[in-house]
Every structure is written in structure tokens, then in C-alpha cells.
């Protein structure tokens, strides 16, 4: 029999359309207390026998005080299903965090499904609002707990809702506000974690400028939701996600579908308390105000100059180019064509917690340790946040995490609360952790469940592996790998044999990760979440546990390893005659570094098999590369730098451009070819659910800055297709030997990044990878460090019929959400790498003021932005004193991209080489900064 319980059945009605839903009320829902005598099932019980108080939280307490709940000082908490449901509907991030607490074996949080329990189910009464009904349900559940557990324990309802608290007390349920509960715990530091109530109902005395007489309205009111909705339907308002310019926080953009264009929002006043990522309603400004520039609308005089940063690798990290700033007296065309607007309401907040530090300030006297401080986020897009703390002296030199609580019209800054501190400012470990947190990277050690999925160690290829019918023994082949020096996670290896016919058999062998990572296991789930390994300057955060990453999967030299191979037969002209895909066993003959491989190829005395194969491969690769370029693949340049790190102190010893050798290009060429072959194969077999990678064609607008620069130096770029662009980039040669590379770097930063997607979501023309000029592309060659490749391995295995396709591939929404997560993780990993490089650049220059050559890449009204090729960084150089914004002394020539002194004595033009001085200064305590000055 499937169920033997008797259920009471009740129905609940809807509004306009009468919906009848059944609710099965149960008697098998348990209270979760280990000491309970009446509940038999203790499998989910967590509330300890020693607990003297059991907390029942209302929805708003969970929504607002999640930082406090995450602190181990709060335990023995019951979460009612009615509360969880409301939290889930209102804020999925908080819901995720509370679920983590419930799942954590270290914490004592239990769920009570009050909505399905026979004794706690509550029916809506006539005239009762859903809110009131839910509050009543919470009180009923609290009362049930008290009577169920008896007088030995105190059941305490935590609610900040005055009405709910009053009713609870009336009904005989103990209730307290979160503030008074935390106070009763006797740990003052916990009070810092409390969310500050919005200022309308501030209970604690306020100091500073919060005195009522001093309070004035800073921001316009947000329109009520009903007005926004009707405004949106009438087309007066436009809805979109606010994106703040990473390099100029006073400028933001709202991509609006209703007007099909981006609306620019200048200044904090027009942004009207919206944060980056918020979904907002925007009203367009009258067209004659469209020229408004950033300087006009800055609410506070924050010192907002650009920092020195790494050269962007794509348009996603590049500063947004707004209308170029020009000195207004000479402005002939003051009205911009780009619509600008102001925020009238916030539809969905994107508030979360931010990393940064407190603004230096003196200790306030006589405030009983309580102080207000301004928090400055590392993320420049976030405004300063006002927090209240009782441990100011302790926090001033720390990196801390702060969460935002509210932002009312009277305060210039949003208010928030302290969450936790990370460590000393400037300390490398602290700053590295900051980079990780900022980019949402999970660097925790792998859990025991994940590690339990590993094969027993030491692992070696067994006879079972060899006898597997789908696995081909390729140990006799002369396979080798070529990677960066010191590479431990070797994903790929190659072989190249000359056939009697004169053709070549070329194989790309990829670590057989899916032989060890099975779908649905904790190991697989963890890897899905992490999405990619993260490479920092001095550290690597693995996607898979170390034994897999560095040993079992890694295709190291002289050991037998399992691989997934793509094997082509190629003519000497590198035409592919046939392609074979198979699981295999290989034994690598050599694990070479790029330098070693290059040296072997170049040393004509060497005639050993590996070297001969290398030369053959290189010859093939060159032809393939040439053909690819002819098809229109772009050879873009990046300004990657490489650090030499002291093994003892982990401090950077040297820094320099990453040198790309022929050997790199050779390996890259075969990896590209393997990825393309695999993409074709899986798409043919699974047109609906293949994971591919596409690179969108850049729009004319995105290429604007490139074209403007090119025009200024008299270069005519054809951007009609990737082929045309590639050709005109090839023609871009001047007297300056570095010119071509510079133009390529500038082209690179105009493009967006390639992204993963599920083939069923788009139509074939959209599959295009613009940069590679490939109609189809995917990632197959790095399964140790990228999860996308793991998915593709499974698809390939299924397409050659050796494994079944896991069920997840049938679930397209889920597959799409996996692809989205991979894009997110991928991007974050890149941002983290950049952050780590920036950090090490700062550490490197701390004691090494340097003079070097730089190139001007962008004009500003009071200076220009330079690119320092040697160190891969760019930053502002000021021609005038700070604070003096142009001052009329300098004049920017838009057309020519030149900045000229008014008296005509000096001028600088774009791409011009200048000598600069690099030095780390500390204008404010704890704020070291890399400064560039003109020599």
C-alpha cells in the first residue's frame, strides 16, 4: 500500500478565478527537537536537548537579519514552511543562504512544515489579508510548539512587527524583537550585525547629520509601484537593469527594450539611490538636457579619479566610452543623441554584501564606543555605505564585509551593517581573499562527500580499464604534451605519426575526466557549481580535488593515463580526411614546456622521434593557422603579463609581457581543431541539447572607439566582417613597430567575450564564433579545469554510443541554467585573475618606482589614459593639478584625438609614446595607489 495515513482534506479558494486546490494535512511532520518524547522520527531533528530557548522567526527577520542568523551565536531555530515560502518569493539569495544553514550539519536549524501539519494549518478568514493570515499561521505554529514541547523549554517568537508581537503576547506566545533578543545574549559585537531599521522608525539615538533639524531631502521620491506599472504600460517609464560604469560610478546605463536603446543616467541624483544590477523604472529627460555631463550632478565631492588597472581583455571589462568629455566653452554640439534619463523607482533591488574598508576617520569622543562610519566598497560602482559600529578602532585598518539595509531620501548614503572582517588592509592574503569574495569564488576545501567520490589512491590504469570494450590501447604511440612551465593539470597531449601513404595521423588526447566524475554525484555537483578552476598569480583554486587535477587525470609523462582522443588523418596540406573519436589509454613520452618544445624544434641537431613529430605538427599547424586566418579569424593581441614569484615570500620578483611562441600557437591550433571537430559531432547527434560556445559579432557601436582612434591616426579599418577587419588589421603597419600590436589590442577590447549556450536555445546562424571565424565551436580540451568540457565529454561519449546521455540533457531549462552559471563563473574567474594580477602589480611597485614608456590610448579633458605595454596596465595621467578639472588650460580636439595646451606650446596625440614615472603612493592611510606621472 502506498499510503496508509488518513488525511483531512481542505480547499482554499482564489480570487477572480476560483481555484480549488487540495491540501493534504498530515500527522507525520515532526518538531525536530532531539529531546521530544512524542515525535518518533528523529532523523531530521537538530534542536538540542540543552536548548533553553527555541526561536521561531517571522519572514522579515529572516529576510533582513540573515547575516546575524549566519553567526553561530544564533542556534536552535525553527523555520516554518510559511516563512520559507515567503522568503523564497521575496529574495532568492536569502532563501539560498537560509537553506544552506538548514543543510549545514554544524548548525541547529530545522524546518517545520506548518502548512501541512494537521494541527497548525490555518485557513484564511473572511476579510483577512494574506499577510495577516501568514502572521497568524506563525503564531499558531509557535503556540503549537510551546504546548508540544511543554514548559521545560521556552518557545520565543522573534518578530519586529509591532502588531504581530502584540497579538502573540495576547495569545500567550512569548515574543521579542530581534534587537532585544540579541541584546539579551550579552555579546555587544553581535549588535553590529543587526540590520539598521529604516530611519523612519529609528529607535536608537542618532548622531551626526541625522539630527532632524539638519535632515533634508537629498533624493526625489520613488514613485509608488502602481504608478510605475501604469507608467510602464503607457510608455512614460522604461524598465531595465541599471549597469553602473565600472570606471565612473556617476554614470550608469539602463538597457531598455521599450525604446530599443540604452538610456544614460548621469549622476547620483538621477540614479536616485539605485544600485548596480537593480531593475529600475526610468523616465527620459527632456531632450535639451541630454548633454548633461557627469560633473553636473555629483551629489557629493567624493574623490573619483580613475585608478590604474589592467588592460581590458574584452569590452566586458573595458571602461565604457561615454560621449567624450570636452571643454564646454568650445562645445559646438552640446546636445547628445543618446537619450538620458532619471530613475523614478526601483522595481527589484540587487543588494547583497560588499567587500571594502572604512573611510579613515578619527575616533568619536564620548559616544560609548558607538560610531557611525562610512564604508567604501572595493567595487567602485557601489556608493559609500553608512554603518554603525561598536568596534571602530578595530575595523579601521581591516578589510570588511558590509551588507546594505536601506536608503531613504534624507540620507546621502545608504545605510548598512557590518558582517565580518577579512583581515588587515594591504596584507596579500587578505587582499587575495577579497578578490575571491568579490567574484563569488568558492575557495573552501572540498567536502568529505566530494572527496569520497575519488577512486582509491594510489591510482593506476587497471586491467579492467584496458579491457573495456570501448577503450583503445594507444600506449604504443609517441604522445607528448606541451604546456606552460610548471603546469601540473595537464589536460591535453598530442601525437603525430607519418603514415605510409605520406599522410599524417594526428591525435589530440584529452584527460578522461568523465571516467572519474559521474553525473549526479557530489563531486559532479561541486564541479558544476565551481564551473572552472581559478588561476591567481600565486595560487590555483581547483574545480576538481587535487588528486584528480594533478595526478589521476593529469596526462603526466611516463605514466599510463586514460584519455578521450580525437584522431584525424591529415594530408601534408593539413586537410582532414577522416576523424575518429575514442576513449583510449595513452602513455605520454614527454611533458614539455613551451620553451622546451620551441628549443627542440629550433635545434636542428635534434632528430629524436618527439622532436621530429613536433616539427611535423608545427608544419601542419602553420598551414591550419594560415587557412583559418584566410577564413577571417582575427589574430587579436592581449597584453598579458607574467610574474616571477619568490617561492619563499610569494612576493613578485619580476614582471613582464607574456611571450607567445610558435609552440604555443601550434598547440592552440590543434586544440581549436579538436574543439571544432567535437562541436560538429555532438551537434549532429544532439541538435537540441549540445553545449556550444559562440562569440557574438561586435556591433558598429562597440567598434566605435576603435574606429575613432584609427581615423585619428589616418587608418581606415573595414569592419563589415571579421574577414574584412582581419585584413585591414594586417594592413595596419606604420613606421612604428609596435603600432600594429597596439591597434590589435584596441580591437580586442571592443569585442565582448565568447559565451556558452545550449544549442536548442538559438538558431544556427547565431552559433557563430566571430573571433575564430568558426560557424561552430565548443570546449572539449580542458575538462580538468573547465566544467563545460566535462559536459561536452559526456555529449561526445553519448554521440559515439558508448555511454547513455545523462537525464539532465533532456531538461533544457536546467541545461540553460548550467550554461548561464558557467558563463558567470568563467567571467568571475577572469575577473579574479585580473584582480590578483593588479594586486601583485601594486605589491611589485611598492618598493620599485620605475620610469618606463607608455602609449596614449584615450583623451580626457585634463589629461589622458596611457597604456604601459611592459606591465600590461593602463591608467590616467593628469596634465593639470587634481581637482582642477581642465581649467581651460588644455583643449581636446575630438576629431584629431589630440590634447593641446591653449597657447599651442605642447600637444599630445593618440597612440603617441610618452615617458612616464610609475610609483606607489599612499595619499590616505591604508590606501596605497599606483600613480602615473608624465616625465
Amino acid at each position, binding site marked *: *500500500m*502506498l*499510503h496508509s495515513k488518513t*488525511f483531512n*482534506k481542505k*480547499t482554499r479558494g482564489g480570487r477572480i*478565478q*476560483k*481555484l*480549488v*486546490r*487540495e*491540501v*493534504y*494535512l*498530515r500527522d507525520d511532520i515532526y518538531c525536530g527537537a532531539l529531546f521530544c518524547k512524542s515525535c518518533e522520527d528523529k532523523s531530521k531533528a537538530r534542536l538540542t536537548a540543552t536548548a533553553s530557548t527555541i526561536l521561531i522567526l517571522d519572514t522579515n527577520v529572516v529576510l533582513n537579519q540573515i547575516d546575524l542568523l549566519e553567526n553561530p551565536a544564533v542556534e536552535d531555530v525553527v523555520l516554518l*514552511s510559511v516563512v520559507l515560502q515567503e522568503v523564497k518569493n521575496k529574495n532568492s539569495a536569502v532563501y539560498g543562504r537560509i*537553506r544552506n544553514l*538548514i*543543510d549545514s550539519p554544524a548548525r541547529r536549524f530545522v*524546518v517545520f*512544515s506548518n*502548512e*501541512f501539519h494537521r494541527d497548525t494549518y490555518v485557513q484564511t478568514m473572511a476579510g483577512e489579508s494574506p499577510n495577516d493570515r501568514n502572521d497568524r499561521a506563525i503564531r499558531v505554529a509557535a503556540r503549537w510548539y510551546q504546548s508540544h514541547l511543554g514548559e521545560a523549554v521556552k518557545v520565543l517568537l522573534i518578530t519586529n512587527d509591532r502588531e504581530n508581537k502584540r497579538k502573540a503576547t495576547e495569545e500567550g506566545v512569548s515574543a521579542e524583537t530581534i534587537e532585544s533578543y540579541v541584546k539579551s545574549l550579552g555579546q555587544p559585537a553581535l549588535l553590529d550585525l543587526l540590520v539598521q531599521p529604516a530611519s523612519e522608525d529609528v529607535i536608537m539615538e542618532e548622531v551626526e547629520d541625522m539630527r532632524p533639524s539638519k535632515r533634508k531631502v537629498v533624493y526625489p521620491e520613488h514613485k509608488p509601484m502602481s504608478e510605475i506599472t501604469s507608467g510602464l504600460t503607457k510608455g512614460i517609464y522604461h524598465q531595465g537593469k541599471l549597469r553602473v560604469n565600472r570606471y565612473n560610478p556617476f554614470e550608469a546605463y539602463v538597457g531598455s527594450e521599450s525604446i530599443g536603446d540604452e538610456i544614460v543616467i548621469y549622476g547620483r541624483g538621477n540614479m536616485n539611490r539605485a544600485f548596480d544590477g537593480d531593475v529600475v523604472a526610468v523616465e527620459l529627460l527632456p531632450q535639451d538636457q541630454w548633454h548633461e555631463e557627469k560633473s553636473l550632478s555629483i551629489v557629493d565631492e567624493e574623490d573619483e579619479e580613475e585608478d590604474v588597472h589592467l588592460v581590458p581583455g574584452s569590452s566586458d571589462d573595458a571602461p565604457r566610452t561615454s560621449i567624450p568629455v570636452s571643454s564646454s566653452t568650445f562645445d559646438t554640439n552640446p546636445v547628445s543623441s543618446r537619450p538620458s534619463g532619471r530613475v523614478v523607482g526601483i522595481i527589484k533591488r540587487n543588494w547583497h554584501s560588499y567587500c571594502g574598508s572604512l573611510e579613515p576617520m578619527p575616533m568619536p569622543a564620548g559616544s560609548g564606543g558607538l560610531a557611525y562610519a562610512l564604508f567604501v566598497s572595493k567595487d567602485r560602482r557601489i556608493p559609500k555605505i553608512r554603518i554603525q559600529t561598536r568596534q571602530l578602532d578595530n575595523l579601521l585598518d581591516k578589510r570588511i564585509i558590509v551588507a546594505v539595509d536601506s536608503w531613504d531620501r534624507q540620507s546621502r548614503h545608504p545605510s548598512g551593517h557590518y558582517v565580518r572582517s577579512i583581515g588587515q588592509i594591504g596584507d596579500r592574503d587578505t587582499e587575495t581573499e577579497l578578490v575571491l569574495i568579490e567574484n563569488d569564488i568558492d575557495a573552501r576545501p572540498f567536502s568529505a562527500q566530494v572527496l569520497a567520490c575519488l577512486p582509491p589512491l594510489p591510482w593506476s590504469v587497471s586491467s579492467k580499464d584496458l579491457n573495456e570494450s570501448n577503450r583503445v590501447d594507444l600506449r604504443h604511440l609517441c604522445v607528448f604534451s606541451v604546456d606552460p612551465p610548471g603546469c601540473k593539470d595537464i589536460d591535453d597531449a598530442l601525437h603525430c605519426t607519418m603514415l605510409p601513404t605520406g599522410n599524417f595521423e594526428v591525435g589530440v588526447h584529452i584527460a578522461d575526466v568523465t571516467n572519474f566524475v559521474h553525473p549526479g554525484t557530489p563531486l559532479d555537483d561541486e564541479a558544476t557549481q565551481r564551473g572552472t578552476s581559478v588561476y591567481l598569480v600565486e595560487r590555483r583554486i581547483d574545480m576538481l580535488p587535487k588528486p584528480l587535477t594533478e595526478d589521476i587525470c593529469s596526462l603526466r609523462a611516463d605514466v599510463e593515463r586514460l584519455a578521450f582522443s580525437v584522431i584525424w588523418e591529415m594530408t601534408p596540406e593539413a586537410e582532414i580526411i577522416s576523424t575518429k573519436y575514442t576513449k583510449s589509454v595513452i602513455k605520454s613520452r614527454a611533458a614539455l614546456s613551451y620553451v622546451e618544445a620551441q628549443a627542440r624544434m629550433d635545434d636542428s641537431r635534434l632528430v629524436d622521434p618527439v622532436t621530429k613529430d613536433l616539427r611535423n605538427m608545427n608544419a601542419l599547424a602553420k598551414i591550419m593557422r594560415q587557412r583559418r586566418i584566410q577564413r577571417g579569424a582575427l589574430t587579436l593581441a592581449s597584453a598579458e603579463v607574467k610574474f616571477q614569484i619568490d617561492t619563499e615570500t610569494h612576493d613578485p620578483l619580476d614582471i613582464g609581457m607574456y611571450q607567445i611562441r610558435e609552440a604555443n600557437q601550434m598547440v592552440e591550433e590543434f586544440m581549436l581543431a579538436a574543439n571544432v571537430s567535437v562541436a560538429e559531432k555532438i551537434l549532429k547527434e544532439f541538435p537540441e541539447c549540445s553545449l556550444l560556445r559562440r562569440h557574438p559579432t561586435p556591433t558598429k557601436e562597440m567598434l566605435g572607439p576603435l574606429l575613432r582612434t584609427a581615423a585619428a591616426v589616418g587608418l581606415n579599418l573595414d569592419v563589415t566582417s571579421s574577414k574584412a577587419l582581419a585584413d585591414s588589421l594586417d594592413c595596419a603597419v606604420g613606421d612604428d613597430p609596435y603600432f600594429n600590436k597596439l591597434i590589435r589590442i584596441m580591437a580586442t577590447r571592443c569585442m565582448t567575450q565568447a559565451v556558452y549556450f545550449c544549442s536548442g536555445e538559438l538558431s544556427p546562424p547565431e552559433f557563430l564564433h566571430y573571433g575564430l571565424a568558426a560557424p561552430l565551436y565548443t570546449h572539449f580540451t580542458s575538462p580538468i579545469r573547465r566544467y563545460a568540457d566535462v559536459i561536452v565529454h559526456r555529449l561526445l561519449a553519448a554521440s559515439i554510443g558508448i555511454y*547513455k*546521455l545523462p*537525464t539532465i540533457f*533532456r531538461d533544457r531549462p536546467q541545461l540553460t541554467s548550467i550554461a548561464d552559471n558557467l558563463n558567470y563563473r568563467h567571467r568571475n574567474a577572469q575577473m579574479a585573475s585580473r584582480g590578483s594580477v593588479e594586486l601583485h602589480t601594486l605589491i611589485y611597485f611598492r618598493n620599485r618606482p620605475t620610469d618606463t614608456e607608455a602609449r596614449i590610448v584615450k583623451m580626457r579633458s585634463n589629461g589622458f589614459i596611457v597604456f604601459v605595454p611592459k606591465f600590461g596596465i593602463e591608467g590616467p595621467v593628469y596634465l593639470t593639478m587634481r581637482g582642477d578639472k581642465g581649467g581651460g588650460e588644455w583643449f581636446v580636439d575630438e576629431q584629431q584625438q589630440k590634447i593641446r595646451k591653449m597657447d599651442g606650446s605642447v600637444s599630445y596625440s593618440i597612440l603617441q609614446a610618452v615617458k612616464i614615472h610609475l610609483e606607489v603612493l599612499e595619499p590616505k592611510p591604508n590606501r596605497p595607489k599606483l600613480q602615473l606621472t608624465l616625465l
Partner: protein
Amino acid sequence: MEFVNPEGLRLDGRRPMEMRQLRAQIGAVAKADGSAVFEMGNTKVIAAVYGPREVQNRSQQINDQALVRCEYSMANFSTGDRRRKPKGDRRSTEISLVIRQTMEECILTNLMPRSQIDIYVQVLQADGGTRSACINAATLALADAGIPMRDLVTSCSAGFLNSTPLLDLNYVEDSAGGPDVTVGILPKVDKVTLLQMDAKLPIDTFENVMQLAVEGCKAIANYIREVLLENTKQLEYRRGL
């Protein structure tokens, strides 16, 4: 959408392997030779059986067995949204056919040559699983009409949502667009007479889902047997036996 929460409860409070509440009433249409109302949760179906009787249209008469006809319809008020559905639309025709074939499989038609059996089923209230409810109601009505049957045929559906096999989907779960397997069995001989699925499922998952539906059918068969037994007892009392 979350159809099974982390506590293992479905939207209506059931666990994944639990069926909705069953209710049955025999003899709802006095004029018919046999009739029954069958409820699975909020899905409510009435079935009426006429026959065996003379074949109305002589050309359809079969010499060695009975002619089974079935007419399925949905009451206009059954879904709540006052939509008038034309009779004989494609869905109704298909379901009529499915019910007819399933019932024909269990009726001992060879015992009643040259006769006709009419089965009318109407959905009074729809909340998912109407197909199964129709078959169960028809079985009861046939039994009530005293028509000789090989076995009671019972039906139940199961689906697969949030990677969990779910028994007896209600309307909300059914509308999620996941796979939905409807199974009909002859419980005594343990034979599957109906199997319908309108989605793709990997074979091993499919086996689990189908097994669950079969278990559901068996549970319904037990329930129907109890109902029939109870009904027979009632009849005995009334006859004063």
C-alpha cells in the same frame, strides 16, 4: 518551479509516492444498467453503462462478440473557466478511443455476441489524471452493470518532476510539462493494458516512473474491490439476505 520541496513534500502536502484521496460511489444514474462516480482528489468522473443490448446499427453488429462503444465528454463546468468545448474534438475522440480499447480488453466480449455495450463517461471536475479516473469509473460501472469481465482494469498516472518520480499528478503538476505516464493494468493477471506517455524519458527513469504508476494501479484495484464488496453487502442487506 519546485514541485517537491527539500522536506520531501509536494505542493499539496503529499509525498512523492502518495496518491490523492480516492472516493467512489456506485449507482449514481438509476436509469443506466450500471453507473459509478469516481474521484481522485478534485478530479471527479461519472460513468454510465448500458447493455449488453441489441446492436442499434445493424451494420456494426459483430457475430462472435459484443460491440463496445464509448463516449467521453467533459462537462462545461468541469475546468472552472467557462469555456465551451465542442463535442467530439480531437482530444475527446482520442480519449474515447483509449477508454474503449482498454475496457474492451477486459470485457469478455465473446460471451455476448451480436450485442452492444455503451459506456458513457463524463468529467464533472478536472484536476489532473482525468484519463485514469475515467477508466476507473468505467470499471466500476461495468461491474455494477454485471458485465462479465476478465479482471478489474484500473489506471493511474505518474510523472517525473524535479528529478523525482511522482505518483498521481494533479493539475498543477500535470501542467508543468514534464513527462506523464498513464498506465492501465489488469491487477490479477498483472498485465499492462494501457501505457501512454507524451514526453521523452531515459529508459531507466521511465522504468521507475512506470513501476510507480503500476503500484498506484494496484492500490486503486484494492480500493475498487473494497468498494464493490461493500456495495454487494449493501445489496444483500436490502434484499434481506
